[in-house]
């Protein structure tokens, strides 16, 4: 009895280990493929860091161009450059930005907190208010309040994010003077941790709302459609026939089922959070990863670009796993199917 049980456990242990190994092998293979694609893409763009540097300096000579190309390893054959790149990926070495004279990992880590704060806040704001507004609209489908919410979300969806940002700056910063127009924090002032937190929060409002607007619209519309669909299913009629209260039906039955498509979409969009948001970061001078990426593209700063690609691809894979886990939490059927 005991032996067979432990034997079964051993088998299960091996199976889990194999599954993890298989998953890890897939993970590495995917990352390597992405890294190769990223390299090819980056190389396909015309020009190189030396020409950018020369263009921005206003003076150049052969020696300077050669020096820069040598530092970047651009004097070597492309296949050797690819090899170096993949080797770095495997050893988790993100390389060095010769332009900024900083290790790429430092550059990315410096930007990460500000990026996550902005995109995370915007994401949560959009997700929760989107679910709330979508549910309200869905339950009142066809009534004037539903029409109003639908129109608002359509307007938000269609509005260019930079325009919305600038208009909010004009209103809340220039006209009313309530909120700072740009930046991450008040610079050159020493303050306590609590005051600093409030300071950062006040800087966060406008960019987070601008960024949230478009996602908010998406989630609202998605949630509305989903709620309408679920509300007409037979099991809701059954629940109503059982005599459950309206609020119990909404929270226990409609929401739990209607939220699944939103989770799917949100999970896909969550991975974009790490990449930052170039437009909002630019309008609000927010020191995020989006700007770092954009500038790296423009400057052909290959190590930075490839480093960001790598970090993002890893995070996308990890976030997909997290989404799967959340899915299983909300909908037990997913687990059953997966184990079968």
């Amino acid at each position, binding site marked *: 009895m005991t032996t067979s049980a432990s034997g079964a456990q051993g088998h299960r242990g091996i199976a889990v280990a194999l599954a993890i190994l298989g998953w890890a092998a897939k993970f590495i293979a995917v990352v390597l493929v992405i890294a190769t694609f990223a390299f090819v893409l980056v190389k396909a763009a015309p020009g190189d860091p030396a020409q950018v540097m020369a263009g921005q300096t206003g003076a150049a000579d052969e020696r300077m*161009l050669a020096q820069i190309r040598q530092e970047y390893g651009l004097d070597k054959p492309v296949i050797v450059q690819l090899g170096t790149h993949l080797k770095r990926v495997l050893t988790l070495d993100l390389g060095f930005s010769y332009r900024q*004279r900083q290790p790429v990992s430092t550059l990315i880590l*410096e930007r990460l907190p500000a990026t996550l704060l902005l995109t995370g806040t915007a994401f949560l704001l959009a997700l929760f208010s989107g679910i709330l507004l979508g549910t309200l609209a869905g339950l009142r489908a066809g009534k004037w309040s539903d029409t109003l919410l639908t129109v608002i979300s359509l307007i938000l969806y269609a509005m260019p994010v930079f325009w919305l940002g600038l208009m909010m700056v004009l209103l809340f910063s220039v006209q009313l003077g309530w909120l700072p127009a740009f930046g991450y924090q008040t610079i*050159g002032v020493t303050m306590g941790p609590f005051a600093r937190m409030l300071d950062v929060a006040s800087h966060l409002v406008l960019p987070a709302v601008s960024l949230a607007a478009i996602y908010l619209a998406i989630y609202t519309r998605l949630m509305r459609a989903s709620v309408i669909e679920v509300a007409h299913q037979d099991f809701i009629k059954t629940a109503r026939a059982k005599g459950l209260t309206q609020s119990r039906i909404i929270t226990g039955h409609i929401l739990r089922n209607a939220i699944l498509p939103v989770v799917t979409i949100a999970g896909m969009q969550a991975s974009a959070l790490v990449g930052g948001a170039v437009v909002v970061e630019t309008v609000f001078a*927010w020191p995020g990863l989006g700007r770092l990426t954009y500038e790296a593209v*423009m400057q052909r700063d290959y190590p930075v670009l490839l480093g960001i690609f790598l970090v993002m691809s890893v995070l996308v894979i990890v976030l997909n796993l997290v989404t799967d886990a959340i899915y299983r939490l909300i909908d037990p059927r997913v687990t059953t199917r997966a184990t079968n």
Partner: protein
Amino acid sequence: MNRREFAKLAAAAGVAGAAEIPWGITRAVGQTRGGTLNAIIQPEPPVLVTAINQQQPTLTLGGKIYEGLLRYSTDLKPMPGLAQSWTISPDARTYTFKLFPNITFHDGKPCTAEDVIFTCTKMLMETHPRARGTFQRVEKAEAPDPLTVVFTLKEPFAPFLSSFDCTTTPIQPKHIYDGTDYRNNPANARAIGTGPFKLKEWVRGSHIHLAKHEGYYRQGEPHLDEIIYRIIPDAASRSVALEKGTVQLTQWTDVEFFDVTRLKGLPHLEMTTQGYELFAPHLWVELNNRVAPMNDKRFRQAVAHAIDKTAMKNRVFFGLGKEATGPISSKTRFYDGNVKKYEYSLEKARALLDDMGLKAGPGGKRVTIKFLVVPFGEIWQRIAEFVRQSLGRVGIEVVLEGTDVAGWGQKVSNWEYEMTSNLLYQLGDPALGVSRTYVTSNIRKGVLFSNTQGYSNPEADKLWEAAAVATDDAKRQELYSQVQKIVVEDMPVVWLIEQDYPTFYDKKLKNVITSGIGVHETFGAVRFG
């Protein structure tokens, strides 16, 4: 410069030195000390060491951290910098500089003649293309005593004395860099210079914070406690920052030209276009002289006649700038406006095109030319559109092509373009910033800002070279006047505008523009109130 002129300058330098004493008194009368200046820097510089990187923003910020031996007035006369006086030998081959005493680097170590020699003969030769062009002419550099530097040139080079501003020759600490890999020296992150401000903090993507250098050698300077350069990538946000008073200073292209008129009207702001004289940015349409029909000077002259430069100045640049008449800017030394004029005349343009056999086809079209739009901002798109409209009127169809900085650099430097626009700094002397665009010896494939259009005229080559080594200013003027006549006739590129840039600053801010490099200056004298 001859000896008499030098004596005058030395006297002026002495006066400047003595003037430091009464400053303390005037301060007591009511000068405000201290304070924080908020300014803008964009795009964000990659490093702050101006010896290693010479991009515009690096030079603007680096000017506070690093100093050169000399400064230059707005009419480009040398003034004392780290050097309090200087002499030139009669054969114009030996230059002797006397440094101010008690100059210290930000790490507290003294700055002496050894640092100057190291910077000019070793470090910059390795890292600074522009300085390399000047200092490769030095035969030897010696330090007879810690405060004296003597340069001996291989042969006379007239603009040598124009090469010591802080953007061309930023003096570096020998004790930190000598014998190291300059570009990868960890001290680059600390940016150690002798300037009145030192690097306190750099939050990438957000701001660069400079603080007062307590041991600064000029008595009473700097007045400000701190300067904070904010990185604001969006032009509309920059204008808002200036309007709201979040920043008190903008320069170069921080403010879009179309915003200038509006901001000029604000009561708390002052606007000036002074302080860009050393750079004297010169804008032109570049035509690849290798490609037909642009290989015919009549075609290039026709283009010159077809573009209404005054309208361009008013419509595109909102009045900032001046119509260019030839290769040398009127702000640069040895300019001569007495050259062939190409007034706006569509008839003359058409006549020239007819004359070269480029007849108008159906619809009036004679030829189609691709124009590579310069990717350095909104204004360049407008310049390109203006050129397209203008040339369309005489039957030259211009097709605009977009690209980014790297693509533009690749195409222009490898001569794979037909038409584009370009802008070069003149750097105070035609031998430093002008001749490089026109001499045959500077046709170098793969190198931007060389003679990329491929113009070659041996007669002009001789004159440019003779003017660079002539030591007498009158002689130089004569040679440059001759060469300007020839080049304006040949019209290798079509000069458009001597560009002016708006510098906005808060009215409370004083002494902002004190020299020909304007906002690149040390800001030791800048103060509030």
